[in-house]
């Protein structure tokens, strides 16, 4: 998505702070030298002192505005930033948002969440689960043509055969 064009000695530092890696296909050029801009790309020319601002800008580009989901538990209710949610699942006809260590009941339907979080890189993997791609730790093919997603909190979520193709297309597998 991003191409970082900075002097060699600054590259590692900038890459760490901006959390970008090199990719062959990119739409944005990030550079400190305006002579290095590319005509057919979106160019962001910045100075070193503005790194923090640029990082926030990149967050906006990649993740859009922060989106909060209201969750409930026995203590009360809490607004949860969507990027912290591992996945949503349905248990006993109730929708739950699963985080690293805790879970909240959500009063939205799963298809409503799917529409809401479409540009947040959540993907439907079964009739009962909506998964945050950024929280997938590992994909393990199962013997029955299904996929098992190992989430970063250690849970396993199955990609149903019906959603298998769509999942592969999103990841370009």
């Amino acid at each position, binding site marked *: *998505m991003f191409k970082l064009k900075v002097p060699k000695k600054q590259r590692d530092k900038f890459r*760490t702070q*901006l*959390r*970008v*890696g090199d*990719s062959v296909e990119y739409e944005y050029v990030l550079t400190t030298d305006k002579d290095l801009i590319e005509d057919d790309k979106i160019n962001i020319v910045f100075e070193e002192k503005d790194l923090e601002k640029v990082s926030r800008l*990149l*967050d906006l580009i*990649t*993740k859009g505005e922060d989106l909060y989901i209201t969750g409930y538990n026995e203590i009360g209710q809490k607004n949860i930033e969507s990027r912290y949610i591992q996945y949503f699942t349905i248990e006993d006809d109730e929708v739950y948002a699963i985080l690293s260590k805790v879970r909240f009941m959500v009063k939205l339907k799963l298809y409503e969440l799917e529409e809401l979080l479409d540009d947040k*890189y959540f993907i439907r993997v079964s009739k009962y689960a909506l998964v945050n*791609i*950024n929280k*997938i*730790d*590992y*994909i*393990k*093919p199962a013997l029955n043509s299904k*996929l098992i997603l190992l989430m970063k909190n250690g849970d396993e979520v199955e990609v149903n055969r019906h959603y298998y193709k769509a999942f592969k297309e*999103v*990841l*370009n*597998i």
Partner: protein
Amino acid sequence: MDGFLIFLEFMLNNVFQISVIFLSVFLMLYFFQKSYREIAMNRKLRTFQKRLRNMNIAKKKKRMAILSVMVIVPIVSVLAFFQLIRSPQITYEYHVSHLNDAEDITMIYESYHQKFTKNVSLRESSIQAFDAQRTVQFNAAVYSENDMPTVKYDTRYIYVLNSDRLVIVNPGNETYPIHKNIDEVFDGIGFFNPIELYIDQDYVVVVGNGYETLSVLPYNHPINTNNGDNISTYVFVFDKNDNFALSSKYVINGNLDAIHKNEHNLLVSVNHHIPFNDEALDVHHYLPTIDANGTIDETLISDIRYIEGTEPNSFTTLLNINIKNSSYDKEVLFGDYKNYIEITDQGFYLLAESYEFIEATEMFTVSEPVNMTRTAITKFNYTSDTLNYHSTKMVRGALVQNDSILIDEDGLRLVTTEKRTDSITHRLYVINHDMNTVSRITDIDTDGHNLSSVQFFNDYTYLIVDRLTDVVIVYNLTNIYNPIYEDTIDYDAFSHYVYAYDNEHILSIDLFDFEEDGLIDGIRIAMLDVSDITSPQEMYNETIIYKDFGLNFNEMLFDNNTIVLSQRHKMLIVPINSYNVLSRIEAMEGVLIFSIDNDEGLVLEGFISHTSQFTPYASYRAIIHNNFLYVISHDAISVSRIDSVEDIMYQFSLINKND
């Protein structure tokens, strides 16, 4: 292409094993593909997450390591498997290995034995080959007038070698015909089987086997080979210039295989069987040992060679003895070469079947495994004082029979047969003395039939197809670089043995079943006119039915050296020395003398016998010298004119009066 056909044949014969192999390969490929897909899929996931600036990505090193192992292990296993089965523990260099110690010997034997006993088809073909040898022994060369192995003459004496003495006869002295009777050198030998007698200007050389005991009589001959460890080969050299005094003596443990004399060099091949079925076997006890005039020379294992795939059941010792200098040089092979050893002026040639086992058969006990038979041709060069290994050449297939090879000054010509489950391939090779293939024919068409015999005459090679089909295929080898198919002729008297009487005539000798009861009970001798090689004509024939003499056995069946064929005197002399193997009562003993007449054919001129007494282990021999026929038996020599053979002029005993 051959490799593919062998693999195909193995597949068809071993469906279960092939199924297991295919299933293994399928599973291996499945897991390979699955592992590869998993790695690729997660790599894409990481790329995707990086695009979203998610830098907190675990590398999953452990899982990757497991997957890598899953991918690599099957590949490495397959490679290791093929490497393992392709790498024999004994390493061969151009089919030849040098042994290191006694362990190598037992390991080679056990490996070979294990494969051979597993291999039913190989065992059966071996038995067939053995049966064939029993019937084709008759094809040994016919000896001419002074080539009888144990009876020779020179300008003064007739030399008669018997089992217990060498008698030197002066035929010109009717009063005291025995010039010298040498028997003391045979003292201490349990039983001496005389095999060869050489006479030259300076020396008389006696060669034979000595047996410590004769407790077991072989089934087909009273003095046939016995591969126990109680056999030794004896070479005695007598000096003619010192009134036949013993000048040197060599004793080699083992059975004499082949012998050849070239001026003052005596070339000897000795086979010493190793009883591997003896649980207390100590290989060192069976190492070739030479007692040369009292000096003991024991062979070192490191000096022994083994030719890949040959039957490892014995040691074959080759000796080049310089008679004049009383010195020798030797080489030793681990293997059985007694089926074919040819010693010529160009060198020692040892031929043996070499079985190449398809490696996969080592993994399974299969009912009909695939194997390949090759003929290993090993050559040793010699000079007056040295003997050196030259090379080993492998050709496809096994010799059709012992006689399907000719070695002359141009090189070697041989015909081999290779049998597969449903096919048979015959090949004709022309090889020069440097052991390079000059030419070969691989498309000999026998319509799927066996070859029963191969004969080489002049520039022609006659391939005699199984006698039931009565077909002879002729190749012209005038240009050895370009053998030409000449013709296929149809004649039924070629089988078994043919001998070139002259350029236009062939003497054909056939084993015959006169009573048509499935048992060979006689011999049919025919003269063929082959002036037109494409159309041989039988001129005449003569039959000898053993049973006319009350026989069911005849020495000629296994020892063709007994026949004398004289072109000069136009005579054929056939010894009859037979007995009933069950009763051991001699029924007929003597020689049949035929004259060869182009008009009348073979005419029986007479039958000469010295006694009807049963004399085991003795044979009648005959020589023609100065228009006299000398008939030699164990005890006597009779002399008659060749124009009236039955009129014995005089007869004298070979037994010393002092005995």
